[in-house]
């Protein structure tokens, strides 16, 4: 069996764990080889914390609280969800009949499924009080100058043009439900790379599209995958041909920009044999008072010897339900990596999954969640080992503050026949004040012998000794707290493209410092 080497970002993660804490919980489970072993475990830790910390730092407060006027939408469906709306969406997009049928079947599945009884509280989510389709501009834009003024202004505030000039290779900036601006470097298309919005892909690459679409996540997978399948709009479609390695990250910014507007983008990435790609998406959203829904589906196929890294930074406003299904299938000797940063939202439920389909496949998930006041981050990862000699690694870090709640919910599954598998799970939670909460729900299902599974979890307070040490060097309490938090998420931040890393650190600094003045 080829040696399993951790990529550099994971090598020193153990050392990153906070070392002096008022409270620490760590448990370690090691399972090695029991035939027919099936085991599940649920664990919940509500960390008791000392109460005299004056940490009044501000997390989850929303920085990009601006929005453009609602008058310039080319089309807006009426609120609510039924077969007529679904037909209308499909018709407006000029879709083939099979897609219309697919949407309607998906709607039936959605309606037949009960709401999940686990995870977060969705009691005030009303599916009939949401717009399912909006179109911001009539035409697809190809150059920045052609993008309508108020939309451009929004992107200006988010720094998109500069980012593009410097770093972006192709921008798919989704404005509400439809892609309005896109560009792709010429040499990419010369290599046969397809990087487009998903609606265009259905029209321009129908065979390739149909071969993979909904094969990784069928509509029947879960209620929200069914919802997305019924009303999906926008998202990215990427095809990397055999052996083509993209050196720079492909990026897309998108955001929700209307009250009660659902965003249901659908992303499909196919990385052919021996190819490599890093896709980056980031979201910011303006603040609104009523609930908004984001329910995306991301499907990825990583073929033999290929590599795919998918990086997400999401910063939803605190009224958004963020219910996302992400799954990748990784074939022989391939590597799939999810890097997932979740800030904001009212409730996020997201468990990026990797199915390791053939020997030698590797899966890695590195996720960070911030839960501020009124926010619940229920995030984690799933690793399904379907073949022998596959390996997986999950690193999950969460920060809870001002009454926020973060949960790690993860699954490691070893299927029958998948011998010699390795899996390692590390969950670290940082709780900044007594009102906040962190839970861990690790599920482990093993149906094979000769496997190695490790699970470690720790919950820590910002250490009093750490604060004192930094403050004794002249840092204020807020500065010291921000520095400790920045260090805590450094393992994720250093994996981000530069402008995301800068933005991430700036967000934390602003939020920590902003509370003081």
């Amino acid at each position, binding site marked *: 069996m080829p040696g399993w080497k951790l990529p550099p970002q994971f090598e*020193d993660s153990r050392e990153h764990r906070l070392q002096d804490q008022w409270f620490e919980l760590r448990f370690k489970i090691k399972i090695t080889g029991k035939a027919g072993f099936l085991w599940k475990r649920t664990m919940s830790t509500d960390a008791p914390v000392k109460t005299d910390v004056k940490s009044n730092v501000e997390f989850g407060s929303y920085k990009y609280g601006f929005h453009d006027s609602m008058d310039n939408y080319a089309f807006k469906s009426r609120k609510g969800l039924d077969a007529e709306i679904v037909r209308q969406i499909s018709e407006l997009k000029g879709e083939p009949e099979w897609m219309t049928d697919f949407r309607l079947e998906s709607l039936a599945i959605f309606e037949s499924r009960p709401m999940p009884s686990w995870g977060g509280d969705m009691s005030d989510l009303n599916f009939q009080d949401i717009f399912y389709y909006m179109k911001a501009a009539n035409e697809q834009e190809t150059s920045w100058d052609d993008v309508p003024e108020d939309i451009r202004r929004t992107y200006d505030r988010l720094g998109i043009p500069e980012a593009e000039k410097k770093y972006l290779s192709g921008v798919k900036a989704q404005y509400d439900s439809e892609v309005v601006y896109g560009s792709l470097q010429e040499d990419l298309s010369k290599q046969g790379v397809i990087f487009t919005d998903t609606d265009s892909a259905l029209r321009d690459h129908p065979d390739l599209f149909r071969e993979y679409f909904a094969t990784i996540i069928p509509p029947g997978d879960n209620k929200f995958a069914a919802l997305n399948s019924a009303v999906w709009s926008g998202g990215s479609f990427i095809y990397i041909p055999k052996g083509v390695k993209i050196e720079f990250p492909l990026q897309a910014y998108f955001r929700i920009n209307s009250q009660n507007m659902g965003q249901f983008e659908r992303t499909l990435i196919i990385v052919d044999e021996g190819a490599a790609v890093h896709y980056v998406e980031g979201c910011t959203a303006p603040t609104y008072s009523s609930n908004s829904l984001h329910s995306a589906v991301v499907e990825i196929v990583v073929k033999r010897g290929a590599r795919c890294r998918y990086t997400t930074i999401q910063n939803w406003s605190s009224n958004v339900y963020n219910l996302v299904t992400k799954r990748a299938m990784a074939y022989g000797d391939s590597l799939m990596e999810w890097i997932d940063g979740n800030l904001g939202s009212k409730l996020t439920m997201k468990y990026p999954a990797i199915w390791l389909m053939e020997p030698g496949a590797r899966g890695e998930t590195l996720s960070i969640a911030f839960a501020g006041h009124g926010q619940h981050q229920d995030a984690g990862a799933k690793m399904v080992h379907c073949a022998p000699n596959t390996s997986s690694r999950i690193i999950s870090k969460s920060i809870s503050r001002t009454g926020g709640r973060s949960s790690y919910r993860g699954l490691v599954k070893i299927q029958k026949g998948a011998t010699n598998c390795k899996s390692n799970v590390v969950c670290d939670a940082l709780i900044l004040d007594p009102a906040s909460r962190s839970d861990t729900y690790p599920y482990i299902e093993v149906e094979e012998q000769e496997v190695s599974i490790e699970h470690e979890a720790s919950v820590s307070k910002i250490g009093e000794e750490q604060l004192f040490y930094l*403050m004794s060097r002249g840092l204020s309490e807020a*500065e010291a707290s921000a520095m400790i938090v920045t260090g805590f998420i450094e393992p994720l931040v250093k994996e981000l493209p530069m402008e995301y890393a800068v933005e991430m650190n700036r967000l934390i600094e602003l939020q920590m*410092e902003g509370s003081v003045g």
Partner: protein
Amino acid sequence: MNSVLKISELHVSVGETPILKGVNMEIRQGEIHALMGPNGSGKSTLAYALAGHPNYTVTEGSIEIDGVNVTEMEPNERARLGMFLAFQYPVVIPGVKVADFLRHAVTNVRNPDRKEGEGLIGMREFRKEIRERMTELGMDLEFARRYLNDGFSGGEKKRMEILQLAMLQPRFAILDETDSGLDSDAVRVVSEGLAKLAGPEMGVLIITHHERLLEFNPPQFTHVMLGGRIVETGDAALAHDLHANGYATVRARHPEADADNARVEAAAAV
């Protein structure tokens, strides 16, 4: 102006337990003071109390820098007034690079009126300075990119404390057993480093069990602490004598303080 750190009738408790019972000391810029004493006498308690650790409660007395009472001040406010503690057990801060941390600290200490969020000192000048200091202390420049004390050996941690001392240039430096747990080479490096840094601008309080640090940095004053108070003060010869002969004679001369010390030691052993 010659600054002075004045400790008057200082009583300090940890939780409900009184540890310091009336400590008096005056340290002027340019002076080197040695603080010695058996385990449990309160040496580290004094160090933490001076730096403003929240768990060390001043119940009586005061700490003043040039007449400014700092007893109630936060640790960062004291640092901005020129107080520095080299920790006996430096704290690990995962994910925070030495250079980033030090740039922030240096900025705050040199610009005491800086508001949070205002700019840091220039990257270029900072880099140049930290490189020079590291070279002087014989440190690998790679240290600046490592995470603060994370995975550092004992000697590396102590050297990092001395680097911080060099960068922050405090008026008053307290070294809490900076030479403990080090091999003789490391003790030499730290001792020489301090000798280079200490000068007319710095008042130094060296807390130590050993003599090596004091060989390189001969103290003008040696204080002996026992049972939470300073029981004797002398010159460098006193430090030498204590090293050679131990604390038995001092304990015998101060039976009441010795009894207090024994109680603290016994409590610590439980």
